[in-house]
C-alpha cells in the first residue's frame, strides 16, 4: 500500500505509454487523453511541495533562532506580500504584482548571477593554467571562440570567426555528439529502471 502500489502504478502506466507510442489505436488515444486530463488536475497541487518546503525551512530557522534567522522573516514576508498582491489586484501587466516582479525579482535575480562575471575574470587570472598539452588545447580553443564571437575577432582577421565556426561545427560537434549519445542511452536506461521499479529514489525514503 505504501510503496508497492505506487510502484505498480508507475509500471503499468509506464508500459501503457511505451505501447501508446507504437500503437495509434483509438483506445490508446483515449488512454492518453484521460491521462492528460487527470495530470492537469493533479499538477496544480504540486506547488505545495515548493512552497511547503521553503516555509518549513525558514519557520524552523526562526523557531530554533538559527544564525541569521531574522532574514527568514524577509523570505516569508516576500512570499506572502507577492502572492497576496496577485490575489488582490490580479497578475496582469500594470498590477502591483508585476511592479514587484520588475522592481524586486528582475534586479535581484539578474544581479545575483552577474556576480559570476567577476568570479570568472578572477579565475581567468588565477586558475586557468596551461599545465599540460591538453589544458593548452582547451585554452587555445577557448581563446579562439572568445575572439571569434565578437567583432574584434572579425576586425583582426575575417578568418577568426570562420575558424570559430569550424571549431563549433566539427571538433566541438564530434565531442558533444559522443557525450550526447552517452547521455541519451543513460536517460533511456534510467527511464527503464523507473518503469521496472529498480530506481525508486523519486518516491522518497521510508518504508
Amino acid at each position: 500500500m505504501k510503496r508497492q502500489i505506487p510502484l505498480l502504478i508507475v509500471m503499468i502506466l509506464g508500459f501503457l505509454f511505451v505501447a501508446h507510442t507504437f500503437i495509434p489505436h483509438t483506445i490508446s488515444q483515449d488512454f492518453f487523453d484521460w491521462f492528460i486530463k487527470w495530470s492537469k488536475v493533479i499538477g496544480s497541487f504540486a506547488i505545495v511541495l515548493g512552497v511547503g518546503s521553503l516555509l518549513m525551512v525558514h519557520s524552523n530557522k526562526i523557531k530554533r533562532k538559527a544564525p541569521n534567522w531574522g532574514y527568514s522573516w524577509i523570505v516569508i514576508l516576500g512570499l506572502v506580500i507577492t502572492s497576496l498582491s496577485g490575489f488582490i489586484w490580479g497578475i496582469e501587466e500594470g498590477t502591483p504584482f508585476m511592479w514587484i516582479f520588475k522592481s524586486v525579482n528582475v534586479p535581484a535575480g539578474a544581479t545575483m548571477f552577474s556576480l559570476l562575471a567577476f568570479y570568472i575574470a578572477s579565475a581567468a587570472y588565477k586558475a586557468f593554467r596551461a599545465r599540460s598539452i591538453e589544458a593548452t588545447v582547451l585554452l587555445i580553443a577557448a581563446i579562439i571562440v572568445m575572439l571569434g564571437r565578437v567583432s574584434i575577432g572579425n576586425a583582426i582577421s575575417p578568418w577568426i570567426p570562420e575558424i570559430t565556426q569550424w571549431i563549433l561545427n566539427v571538433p566541438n560537434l564530434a565531442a558533444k555528439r559522443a557525450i550526447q549519445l552517452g547521455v541519451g542511452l543513460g536517460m533511456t536506461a534510467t527511464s527503464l529502471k523507473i518503469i521496472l521499479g529498480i530506481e525508486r529514489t523519486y518516491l522518497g525514503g521510508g518504508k
Partner: protein
Amino acid sequence: MMETIGTWLAVFLTLSMFSFLYKDNPFYKFAEHLFVGASMGYAIPYTYYNVFIPYTYNPIFLRHDYILIIPVIIGIGYWFRFSQKLSWISRYPIAFGMGIVGMGVPMSIHAQVLVQMRTMMLPLTSINLILIFIGSVSILLYFFFSKAHTGLYGKFTKIGIWFMMIGFGASFGYTVMARISLLIGRIQFLLSDWLGIIK
C-alpha cells in the same frame, strides 16, 4: 510615481547584490532573501489562476465533470509530503506523474540516440565529416572501460581526449561570454534606466 519608486528600489537591490563583491554584508543578505521569497510568491497566484481555475475548478463546478474529484483527491496527496507518518500518501500523485517516462524510452532513444547515429552513418564525403566520425568514435571508445587503453587502441582513444578538450574549450569560451553578458545587462540598467546616460 510608482515607476520612479520601482526604479530606485531596483537600483538599491542591484547595488546591494554587487556589495557582495567587497564582502558578505546585511544589504546583500536582505536582497538575497527578499528575492527567494518573492520568487516563490509568484508561483502561487499563477498556479491558482492559470492551472487550478481552468483545469480543476471550472470543469468540476461549472461543467459538473465530477469524475475529476478523483484526481483532486490524488493531488491532495502532495500535502502529506511533510508529515512524518503519512508522507507515503504523497507517493501516489508522484507515481501518477512518473508513468509518462514510459513514453521517454522510445522517444528519447529516437531523438537523442538514433537520429544522431544515423547522421554519423552518412557517407564520409568530406574531411569535416571524416573528422566528426573519428572524433565521436574515439571519444566513445575512450569511455569504454572494459578494455585497457594500451597500444594502438590507447593511441586512438587519446585522439578522443583532444576532441573533447576542443569541445570543452568551446564551451568554456562561451561560458566567459555568458558571464560577461550578464554583467553588461546590469550595467546597462544602471546607465540607462537609472542614470539615463545611454539611450
